[in-house]
């Protein structure tokens, strides 16, 4: 067992403090006031090691990192370009995949059952899907007045290829009661306060979504082990909904007979006001006022060219990107170079599978030299489209699906 740096009551051990002092190279100011269970940041893992250098770091405690939009050009997002959204700390205890287990428990299972990771791989049919994971707060920086939460630009989205077993196959093996309503996950990420009795995040989805074919208990992404920062060795992966339902470092799933009440299910976390509010308006954070976000809204990005492109007027400009629509399909993608006065239809490919993003492309010939903005707008299979302005303000700053745009200059 790894030597603990805290004593039984959660205070830093003297020896650990000496190690820390050596690491930091100076006396740790206020060391006697370090809160219970708190481990200084020097012990945290660095999730930027496996990332491209121009990822944008919004925070390092917890780690929150997004991709520049032009780096999301791949149809299948490589892990080095995947955004990171953590609520707690990255597990620092060594992880042994051979002893890792998944426990299915809760009010609505016939009996609690535990599987090793190897059981899961051997006993169930593996499946691979490309799944869009997007932070519920992606685009939050566009809201005014500013809301709480990470001020994401629009790069907190990925569509990677996940491999694992269907949650529904596992739940069928466990046996569910009639009254199952919701699932909730539990992972090994320590709470920021490092108090072992606190849970950093424990969210979930209604049983109907949990039983979809694409809802995976995954151990691989893009054909390799999931990197530590993305949930090694086991992750719940649910496409099309806020990525916070895709629990990392997964060890337990509870099948609940009521809406799951774990950490970050409460207040205005991942919730929208039921009645539209005026920007900046405060309303009581009660279930009567807020509904849980389910499917993400329709959205699209221009991933090529990178904004700022100067090109020759006489050649048409080739553009491309992705579009996605939560639980739905994307029906159409249009671009505009006149601020939405006219729209031109782009070519759109079908998704690789349900809940994957779709590739669009187009070529635009510009009428004369000068400054232009290229705007992109996707429409989903229900006819809902992206607003050009910032949509409904909400206290958590969620679901900004306003059109993406880039600046270009046509040169003579």
């Amino acid at each position, binding site marked *: 067992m790894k030597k603990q740096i805290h004593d039984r009551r959660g205070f830093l051990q003297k020896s650990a403090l000496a190690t820390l002092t050596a690491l930091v190279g100076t006396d740790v100011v206020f060391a006697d006031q370090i*809160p219970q269970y708190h481990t200084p940041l020097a012990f945290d893992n660095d999730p930027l090691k496996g990332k491209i250098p121009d990822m944008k770091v919004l*925070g390092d*405690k917890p780690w929150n990192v997004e991709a520049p939009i032009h780096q999301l050009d791949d149809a299948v997002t490589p892990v080095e370009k995947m955004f990171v959204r953590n609520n707690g700390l990255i597990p620092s205890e060594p992880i042994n995949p051979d002893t890792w287990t998944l426990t299915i428990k809760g009010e609505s299972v016939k009996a609690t059952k535990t599987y090793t990771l190897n059981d899961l791989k051997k006993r169930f049919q593996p499946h691979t899907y490309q799944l869009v994971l997007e932070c519920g707060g992606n685009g939050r920086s566009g809201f*005014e007045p*500013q809301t709480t939460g990470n001020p994401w630009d629009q790069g907190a989205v990925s569509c990677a290829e996940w491999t694992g077993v269907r949650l529904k196959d596992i739940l069928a093996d466990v046996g569910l009661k009639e009254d199952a309503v919701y699932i909730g996950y539990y992972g090994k990420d320590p709470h920021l306060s490092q108090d072992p009795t606190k849970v950093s995040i424990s969210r979930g989805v209604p049983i109907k979504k949990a039983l979809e074919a694409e809802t995976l208990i995954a151990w691989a992404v893009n054909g390799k082990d999931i990197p530590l920062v993305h949930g090694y060795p086991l992750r719940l992966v649910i496409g099309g909904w806020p990525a916070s339902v895709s629990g990392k470092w997964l060890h337990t799933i509870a099948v609940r007979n009521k809406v799951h009440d774990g*950490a970050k299910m409460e207040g205005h976390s991942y919730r929208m006001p039921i009645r539209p509010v005026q920007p900046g308006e405060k309303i009581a954070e009660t279930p009567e006022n807020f509904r849980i976000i389910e499917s993400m809204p329709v959205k699209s990005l221009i991933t090529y060219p990178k*904004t700022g492109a100067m*090109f020759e007027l006489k*050649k048409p400009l080739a553009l491309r990107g992705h579009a996605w629509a939560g639980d739905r399909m994307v029906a159409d993608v249009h671009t505009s170079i006149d601020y939405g006065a006219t729209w031109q239809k782009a070519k759109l490919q079908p998704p690789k599978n349900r809940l994957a993003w779709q590739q669009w492309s187009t070529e635009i010939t510009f009428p004369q030299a000068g400054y232009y903005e290229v705007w992109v707008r996707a429409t989903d299979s229900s006819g809902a489209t992206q607003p050009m302005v910032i949509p409904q303000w909400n206290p958590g700053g969620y679901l900004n699906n306003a059109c993406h745009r880039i600046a270009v200059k046509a040169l003579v």
Partner: protein
Amino acid sequence: MMKAVKLMVFIGAVLIGASSFRVQNSEANVYTVGNQMIDTLKIDTESGLVADANLMMVKSQCTACHSSKLILQHRFTRAGWLDRIRWMQKYHKLWDLGESEKVVLDYLEKYYGPSAIDSKATFRRASLNDIQWYKLNQ
């Protein structure tokens, strides 16, 4: 022994005097022109936070648990910052700040409050800016 104590008291008094003088100095800078403010203040290199006499207090109460970026990325009113403290106390085990609460709020309100210049999204879509132009290979 008595001499040493007296000397300590004297040094302490000088330090307190000097630091309060520095606070006044930086206040004079704060109320200059809008976004010039941050340029004229000392920034703590480790955290990126404004370095004034209360920085260590803010560090021990706030960034002991979370990144200083959670402060740096936001501009809230005093009431807004107090809301965040109450929220962390309710859900994230933040302790009772006691008398430090006023000091922390004074600091946050002073340096990280909203101002017209900071709010970049005055329009429902602001102009694109900071564009880095480059020649596209076609």
